[in-house]
Structure formats: structure tokens, C-alpha cells
């Protein structure tokens, strides 16, 4: 917008010239606009410009180093944007799973690989096909290096355009199995324990052919077998593909999700024999065809945990632009959706947000679990603080989340104790979903928010990293997972970025490994649970570590073995506790998820190790 005062350049129309003469005449008559009055305390434009970014704080301890080259990883998620169809399918991106598939004690990685489009002409009619591309399985050496074992493990997937990868040991054999989601179905790989997988999608009863995204594995009916909650997004297809205009004539923009109908989610309940049944109706999941409420939800993220602290596992579903759901479990796998009533469906203004990534955390160490959702631009990321027994209050204001600025379209996210100081920090991968955003940039910086204590309250500060840091540069972040890839007790971050390939923007940004190199680390304790009566990895178990501070007071930290979480991705299932300098260990209590809320207390253990705890058998 021109602001030139040069008459020869600024006046291009006769009306504009007339206005100038009008100005002169007006000035002569003494009716010119008043001059700006010097304002005491006035904020000058230049100052606003510099303050326009939200404040960031240099962390004393938190450091991350990108080691993707060292790790030997060169993976780029393909979304087909180079074909320029500009469809919503391209915007979701892909996830990453962090798990130890070969049980060698070192974490391995799996990246879902999206897909592409192809045109065919049949009887003069053009058709656009959607195809998948092979995903990538990498074996870790425990020192941060990886080798491609996709062929060896037979986990290429690629039957459809894929998004998510999620891990659960459905047959409790100690070898985690892998479920891949995407447009057109599920692909489920059973870990055979010999370094190979076998696809058993149909055999186990995963008959879903819809557009699946997030997954949460957990035992909802407490029968000792893992069940599987599968989210679905919206009813887009090339047959239901409205035109959404870009900023100029002829440019096409990706349509927003609200132009489509949400698809109902599915709960696959285990039959106990290695097969599953669709128990969605019994479970009471929202389903528009049944309850006609037109609110199936545009599901993208899901997390399982015990928000009521009553021993059974509840489900929190993050929906994109529609209200989020909270399904509370009656202990039998039947749920009631109470998101609205319990305060986790909407934001403070009562509006539904574009929620993507989710997590469950006791961010304020008050002994119950709070919920977290990464949201769309101009929407504050939502931190819902558990007030009492599963009733929540939107707490982003009080926790400093609402002053982060508007730049962020948040996706993969996870709480973890980055600096091992006894409280959990949070990381978020960001990046836009449309091609021509008007409000915020296309590529965005990731966020690391450090949990600090201000006047006795938990508060989050955006950590400022050096300019050359990955965290200081913009990316198209999507899937994110955490896990200790180099076995040093500090949890590392893995991010799967999405492709950008249209108009003047072309970026094939690869996935990255961000090694946690935080300095002056405190002590740590990593815990690996082995369930016997409950599920193998103890999903849903609550761990409480008690340490004694130097002043004699006790510090209690809560963790839960999470089902689902983050965005289209899988975190390492082993929780890590940070133990600040000066604390001494007292006890670790494990509450296994069951009706009896069986607890186990361990007192003889040391820090800086991975502690394996086996669930005691009945009477054992």
C-alpha cells in the first residue's frame, strides 16, 4: 500500500488528483486534518514491530542439537502437493513411531510415508487415483544412529496414502506391533519376534476403510487385552471436493475441514483371541447415523488416561474445528461423552478450536492429570487443568500459554522433562495447513515451552534458542515423538515434516532428530513396565515417584503410561522422571490399571537407570 507523497507517482487517477485539489482547498479554508498530537507513552510503530514477537527466554539448561545426518536418516514425507490438486488430504502430514521393535534395548523409528496422485483416463473420463508410498523402518544402535530395515522387517506398508503409525503389543508377546493409518484403511503389522513383521489387518478384523488418523491403544474393558481406538477425519474425496479459491483468480486453495462432514471414530474391542470387533456402538461413541447430532468430530489426535483417577481409562479426542470429546469410562468399556460438561470441549470463549496434537500430563504436580491440545492459528493452545475428578478449567491464561503469539498451527506435541528438573516441559511442531495463509506464515518455528515456577504456580516460558538452532528456524512440522534414542536419560525429539511443493514455495524438508544435549543435567529415572494381568506395556498404569528435597519436603511426580498422544505418532512408552540435584529417592508407586487398582511400591532403586518393573501376579 503506497504512502508516497510525491504527486507525480502517487496520483494515477483523475479522482485522486481531484482529492488532492480538494485537500489544498480544504487546507486553505482551514479544515485540514488535525496534526498528530505527541502522545505521552505512545508506542511507536517501530517499537511495536520489535515487540510483535512474543517474548522468549533463554533457558539455563535446555539445549537441543540436530543430529539427522549423524543419525543417518534421510526421510521426506510425501504428500502429493507437487500435483497441485490442493486437496485437504495433503495438509495432514505424517507421523513417526518411537519404539523398540526388536527388544534389544535400543529405540527404533518408523516413519509413515504419505502418498501421491495419478491421473487415468477411462472411456474419455479423467479419474484421479490416490496411492500410497512405502514407509520407512529404522533400527537404532542406542547411540543415535540408524539403519534402514524396512525391507528386512517387511513393513513397507504403502497400501494407501498413510498418515499415522501407532504401537501396541496386542498379543502381549513382548514384541510391539504396528498399526498404520491413512486414507482408505488401516494396515496392521504383527511383530513376529524374529525381526520381521507380518501384515494381519484383515485377519484381526481391522476392516476399516475410512480416512483414519490418530490411534490410542489401551485396555478399556479391563479384560487384560489391548483394545484400539481409531479416529477418523472428514468425508473428503475427489467426488466431494469443492473448489476453494486462492488469493488470486485461478489459484486454488486447500478447503477447510468445516466444508466437510466429520467421520465417526471406531473402537475396536479385543475378543481376547487376537481378533477385534467394532464395539463403537456399545461403547457409546458419537455417531451421527445413530444419534443425529451432526457432531461426529473431525478427529486428529487422541490420548488415553485416567482423568477421573477412578482406575479405568478415559479417552480424550482432539477434533479439528469441532468440539473435542472426553469419553469417561464406566469401567466396562462403555463411555459417556462429557467434553462440554467437564470443560475440555471448547476454548474459554466457548468456541471449538482446530485441535490437532494432544497430551495428558500433571503439569503442576498436584496429583491429577491435566489435558493439553495444540490448536490452530489465533487459538491459544489449550491447557485444561483438572480441578477435581475430571472437571477441567481452561488454564492457558494462568499458565502463560495465551501470550505466545498467533503464529502457530500446532501439530505434534509432547510433554517431557527436557531438563530433568522435576516438572514436565512441552514441545510442539508447527506449520500451516493451507497454501496461501493470510494470518500467519506458511512455515513456522517449533516451540519448546519450559515449565517454570512463578509465585508457586506452574508457568510456561518459550525457550529462546540460538539463531542457527532448529528451534529458531521455520518448518512445516507435523508428526512428533519423544524417546531417549541414545540412552543417556535425556529424551530426544523426532519430527516428521511435511512437503511444501507449490507455486513459489518448494520445500522437501526431511524429518529431523533433535538430540537433547541439555547441560548440567539432573538425575533421571526411566521406567519400563511389564504387565502380566494387565496389558504387556502397562498402558494406563500410573507411576508416582516420591523424592525428598534438601529442605525435607517431599516432591511427588506423576506419570501415566499413555495410550495415543501427540499427533499421528507414537512416543516411547517408557516414562522418564527428572530428579533435581539435592533430592533423594524415596519411593516409586505403580498403580496398575484394573478395577482393583492394584498398587505396587518400590523403594530400593537407584537413579540414572532404566528400571524394569514386572506386575506381580495374583497372589504373587
Amino acid at each position, binding site marked *: 500500500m503506497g504512502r508516497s*507523497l510525491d504527486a507525480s507517482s502517487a496520483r494515477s487517477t483523475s479522482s485522486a488528483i481531484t482529492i488532492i485539489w480538494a*485537500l489544498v482547498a480544504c487546507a486553505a479554508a482551514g479544515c485540514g486534518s488535525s496534526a498528530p498530537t505527541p502522545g505521552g507513552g505512545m508506542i*511507536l510503530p517501530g517499537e511495536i514491530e520489535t*515487540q510483535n514477537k512474543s517474548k522468549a527466554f533463554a533457558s539455563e539448561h535446555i539445549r537441543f542439537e540436530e543430529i539427522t545426518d549423524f543419525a543417518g536418516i534421510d526421510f521426506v514425507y510425501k504428500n502429493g502437493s507437487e500435483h497441485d490438486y490442493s486437496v485437504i488430504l495433503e495438509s495432514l502430514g505424517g507421523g513417526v513411531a518411537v519404539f523398540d521393535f526388536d527388544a534389544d534395548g535400543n529405540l527404533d523409528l518408523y516413519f509413515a510415508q504419505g502418498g501421491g496422485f495419478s491421473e487415468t483416463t477411462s472411456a474419455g473420463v479423467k479419474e484421479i487415483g490416490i496411492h500410497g508410498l512405502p514407509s520407512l523402518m529404522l533400527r537404532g544402535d542406542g547411540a543415535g544412529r540408524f539403519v534402514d530395515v524396512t525391507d528386512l522387517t517387511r513393513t513397507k506398508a504403502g497400501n494407501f496414502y498413510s498418515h499415522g503409525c501407532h504401537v501396541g503389543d496386542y498379543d502381549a508377546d513382548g514384541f510391539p506391533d504396528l498399526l498404520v493409518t491413512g486414507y482408505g484403511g488401516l494396515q496392521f503389522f504383527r511383530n513376529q519376534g524374529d525381526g520381521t513383521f507380518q501384515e494381519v489387518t484383515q485377519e484381526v478384523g481391522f476392516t476399516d476403510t475410512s480416512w483414519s488418523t490418530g490411534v490410542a491403544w489401551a485396555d478399556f474393558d479391563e479384560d487384560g487385552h489391548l483394545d484400539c481406538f481409531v479416529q477418523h477425519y472428514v468425508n473428503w474425496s475427489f467426488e466431494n471436493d469443492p473448489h476453494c479459491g486462492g488469493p488470486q483468480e485461478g489459484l486454488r486453495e486447500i478447503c477447510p475441514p468445516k466444508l466437510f462432514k466429520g467421520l465417526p471414530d471406531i473402537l475396536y474391542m479385543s475378543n481376547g483371541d487376537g481378533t477385534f470387533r467394532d464395539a463403537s456402538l456399545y461403547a457409546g461413541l458419537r455417531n451421527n447415523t445413530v444419534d443425529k447430532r451432526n457432531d461426529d468430530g473431525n478427529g486428529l489426535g487422541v490420548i488415553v488416561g485416567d482423568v477421573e483417577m477412578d482406575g479405568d481409562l478415559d479417552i480424550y479426542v482432539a477434533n479439528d474445528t469441532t468440539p473435542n470429546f472426553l469419553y469417561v469410562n464406566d469401567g466396562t468399556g462403555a463411555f459417556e461423552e462429557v467434553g462440554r*460438561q467437564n470443560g475440555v470441549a471448547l476454548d474459554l470463549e466457548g468456541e471449538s478450536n482446530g485441535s490437532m496434537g494432544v497430551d495428558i500430563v500433571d503439569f503442576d504436580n498436584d496429583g491429577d492429570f491435566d489435558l493439553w491440545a495444540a490448536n490452530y492459528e489465533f487459538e491459544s493452545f489449550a491447557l485444561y487443568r483438572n480441578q477435581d475428578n475430571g472437571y477441567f478449567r481452561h488454564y492457558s491464561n494462568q499458565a502463560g500459554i495465551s501470550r505466545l503469539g498467533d503464529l502457530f498451527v500446532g501439530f505434534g506435541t509432547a510433554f517431557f522433562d527436557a531438563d530433568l528438573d522435576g516438572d514436565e516441559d512441552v514441545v510442539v511442531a508447527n506449520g500451516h495447513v493451507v497454501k496461501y495463509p493470510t494470518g500467519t506464515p506458511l512455515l513456522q518455528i517449533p516451540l519448546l515451552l519450559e515449565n517454570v515456577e512463578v509465585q508457586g504456580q506452574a508457568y510456561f516460558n518459550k525457550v529462546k534458542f540460538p539463531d542457527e538452532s532448529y528451534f529458531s528456524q521455520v518448518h512445516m512440522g507435523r508428526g512428533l515423538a519423544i524417546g531417549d534414542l541414545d540412552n543417556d536419560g535425556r529424551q530426544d525429539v523426532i519430527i516428521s515434516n511435511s512437503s511444501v511443493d507449490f507455486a513459489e514455495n518448494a520445500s522437501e524438508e526431511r524429518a529431523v532428530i533433535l538430540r537433547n544435549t541439555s547441560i548440567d543435567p539432573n538425575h533421571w529415572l526411566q521406567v519400563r513396565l511389564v504387565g502380566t494381568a494387565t496389558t504387556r506395556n502397562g498402558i494406563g498404569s500410573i507411576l508416582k515417584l516420591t523424592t525428598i528435597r534438601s529442605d525435607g519436603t517431599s516432591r511427588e511426580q506423576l506419570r501415566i503410561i499413555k495410550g495415543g498422544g501427540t499427533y499421528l505418532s507414537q512416543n516411547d512408552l517408557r516414562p522418564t522422571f527428572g530428579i533435581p540435584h539435592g533430592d533423594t529417592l524415596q519411593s516409586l508407586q505403580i498403580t496398575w490399571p484394573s478395577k482393583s487398582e492394584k498398587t505396587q511400591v518400590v523403594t530400593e532403586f537407584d537413579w540414572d537407570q532404566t528400571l524394569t518393573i514386572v506386575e506381580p501376579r495374583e497372589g504373587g
Partner: protein
Amino acid sequence: MQFCPDEGPEMSSETNNPPSDDEPSEVEMSESTAEDSALDDLEEVQPEDATRPKSIFSSSASQEEQRLPADSESSEPSEPSESSMLTKGIVVLVILGLLAFWLRADWQNGCASEAIKKRDFENAEWWIGWSEFVHPGNLEAEFLKARILRLQGDFQASMDQLEVAKDAGLDPKRAERERTLALAYLGQVNQVQDQLGDLLQNPGDDAHEICEAFVMGYITTRTFRQAETIADAWAKDFPEDAQPHYYVGVIHRENGRWEAAQAELERAVALDPEHSAAARELGEVLVIRKIPAEALKYFQMSQKQEDSQMLAGLVGEVQCLRALGRSDEARERIQAAMGIDPLDSAVAFEAAQVEMDENQYDAAIVVLEPAVEANPRDHNLRNAYAEALGGVGRTDEAKEQFDHVDAFKNKLREAKVLVEELTSNPDDPDKRYRIGKLHLDYGDPKEGLIWLYGIFNYTRGHLPTHKALADYYEANKDQSPRFAELARAHKLMSEGRFMELMPQEGMPQGMMPGGMPGGMPQGAIPQGGIPAGQ
């Protein structure tokens, strides 16, 4: 109250020496520096410009006023010297000159015009009153009264006043121009847009008014591209005028271009730090952009000027304080807002949030209960009420309220989808009708009315729209005496009985809904109306 002569030097300096991008902005200068600069400019450039009597006069006066103390200091206090006598003589002459000038009707009316430009109607009316006192029945004063009424949104009274001015001898062409601006301002731009070129060819003193009326009209009818084109030209030609930047900021905001909106509104506020609407709007944009620390400053700035939207600034301040975790201050400010209007939905909402932030759900219910009753269509307020009920364990009541919100919000979600769909076919009157009807039935009726009247920009006789409008006005006729007339008119239109409508039905000819080119008749919107400019 601000007296017009004080503004003379500043106005002149701006006209002669507008700031360039490379020069320090005038807001960075101290008051005395700005004035000195203005005086210097006048001395060097046009000390004897006969076409600028007011500017020269004003600057000379200031010049003398500034120099007098220095002269006095150099004189012997006990024995008046020749120079001090001369100085005193000059002072007397200046005062007499000022008095003579101050008594001139064109000066008073000029000051009134100036105040109108700043939308300082109280000041303008003071000057008009003075003008009428000194020169009873002067034409310009009658005309300016009509203009004030127009800008206050009272179309009919404005037209009546124009008739009075015409009877007193006002040039009919000027009266017609004012009427044209009124129509544009009301959103009936399609009726008058052909005249825009002519108006700008010969704007007289009204370039600012012409631009503003059309920009407002296009914003009201959501034809933002045209609004932006005019506002841009306006900003280019009047670079020191904050108002076009304010409107461009509003247009960017309406289109979700937040960064651009922020930049334009910052320009507006920099040009005119007393532009409370721009400051408030900027605060709101910064809240949306999640920069509450910055937003807070602008909301506070917006409250320095008392206006009808002052409460909104106060509420914005509370929002920011909460986002910054400054709960004690938030509580203090919201109590001030509650003292002004506890039933205002935004005030009640924030007050309830302040309570609930501290788990005071009972207190939140006390605030919300009457506010929900007073604002039954405010779904966010009702949602907060439901949340508060849940917080005290009244779960069944909470569920009932949540279900109510759900049902209505689902309908409004449909409207949002239709708005998205409209981008590919903006001329679709049926879709516009459905959007308007959804807002009318489930959301903010004002929003619904704007959508429905907007249909007449695309088609003249959309019968379902007339039916919807007739039903709405009939159901709400106790809200405004005008509504009964509108109900009858729209009912006739919906039944195709166009001929039965006469111009004296209360709507000026050319504003008949549907029968004539479209637009929104006077009094069609419930109290509060369409958000206007400063």
C-alpha cells in the same frame, strides 16, 4: 473541551510539510518542537499567503504568544520600555483580532466542521450553537446539523434537517449530495455508486466525507474490495489522515488478514493517538494475535477518549490482564466495568471468567444469571453460565444449558459453511438468504439483518427474504416503533403487493426494500446498529 484556534498551527504545518517516511514521525516530537516547526514553515514558505487567512492568523497568534515571555524577560519590570508598550499593544491587537475572528460565522462553522471530521459531535454542536447565537439562521449551521444527524445514524432526522436547510436557502445540489452520502453511509451504495465519480471530480470540502461514506457503505455490505480501493486512494491523498488507515485496518480484520490489520491500525494510531476506535480495534487485533501485553496498552489508550465504546476498551483491558495472569488487576478493572453495565454480555462474560479463574463458580453464577436472561442469544455467555453451573455441581442444569448452546451453535456452524461456500459463488441469493435466516433465528439478529438486506444488492425481489424480514419485524415490533412499519412493508413485498407501498410509508423513495434497488432502510437494525467509524 478543545477550542478550535489551538489547532490552527498544527493543521497548517501538516498541510505544508507532511512527514516523509525517512523523517521522524510527528508523534515522536515534543509538543513545542512540533509547534516551532510549524511556525518556521509558515515564516519561510507562506508568510503572506492571502489564501490562507486562518492558518496565518493562527500561526501569527501563536508566534506572538510564544515570543512574548522572552521579550518580557529582557525588559525592566519597573519601568515599561517602548518595546514593552509595543508588545502590550500587539497583544491587545492580537486579542481583538482573535475576538473579531472568533465572532465570524465561517470561523465558528469551520471549527464545527473540524470537530465533525473528528467525530467530536459534542464539540461540533457547541460551535454550531455559538454560530447560531451570533448569526441566527445561518445556512451552514443548519447544514452541519443535518450532517451530524447523518453521522450519528439518524437518517430520517438528517433528511428532515436538510429540508430545513433547503428552506433556508441551502443549495439543492449540496442537499442532494448530503443525501447521497447518507445513502452510501447506510449501505445502499448500489443506489449511489454511479455518482461516486462525479462526487470526487468536484468534492468541494467534502472529499473526506465522500470517501468515508462510501467506504462505510461498502464495508456494511461486505463488498470489501471496493471499500479498500477507496480507502487506499483516500490514504494516499490524505497521508496524515488516520481515518482511511483505520478503515483499511477494519477491512483487513474482516478478511482475517491480521498482520496487515495490525499494521494499518498502528498507522492510524500513530497519526492520531486520540483515535479511540483505532486504538480499540488495534487492541482487539492484538488479542486475537495473542499479544496481550501490547493489546493492553492500546485498550488503555482507547479509554482516554470517552465514547460510546469505552466499555469495550475496558473489557479488552480485562481480557489482556487475564491473559497476562494479572488477576488482581483484572478483578479491579472488571469491577469498574460492572459498575457501568453489569448486563452487558461482554462485561458479564469477563466478570464470570475472572471469578471462575479463581474457582468462584457461585460468584460467576450471580453475574451470569441476569446477563444470560438479558442476552439470551449470546451463546458464549450461556456457555460460561453452563460451565459455572457445572462447577457447583448443578450438572443437570448445566447439561440443559450446554445442549441449548450446542443446538444453536450447530446451526451457526451451518451458516459458517455456507459463507465458505459463498466464496465460489458470491452472487447466490438463496445461500445468502439461508445464512441470514440462520443468524436471524439462532445467532445475532443484527448479523442476520445485514445478510438479508445484502441480498437486495443482488436481486430486487427475493420474496423469502421479505417474508423473513416481515416475520422478524412483526415478532419484535415492540423493540422499535419503526419495526411495525417495516413488518408491514416487507409483508406486502413478500406478497408481491408492490403498488400498495407508498414513499410516505416512512422510507424515503429509493429505499423501498426490494421494490427499488436494495439496501437497508433507516431503523432496520435494532439498537446498537452496525459498528461505525470513530
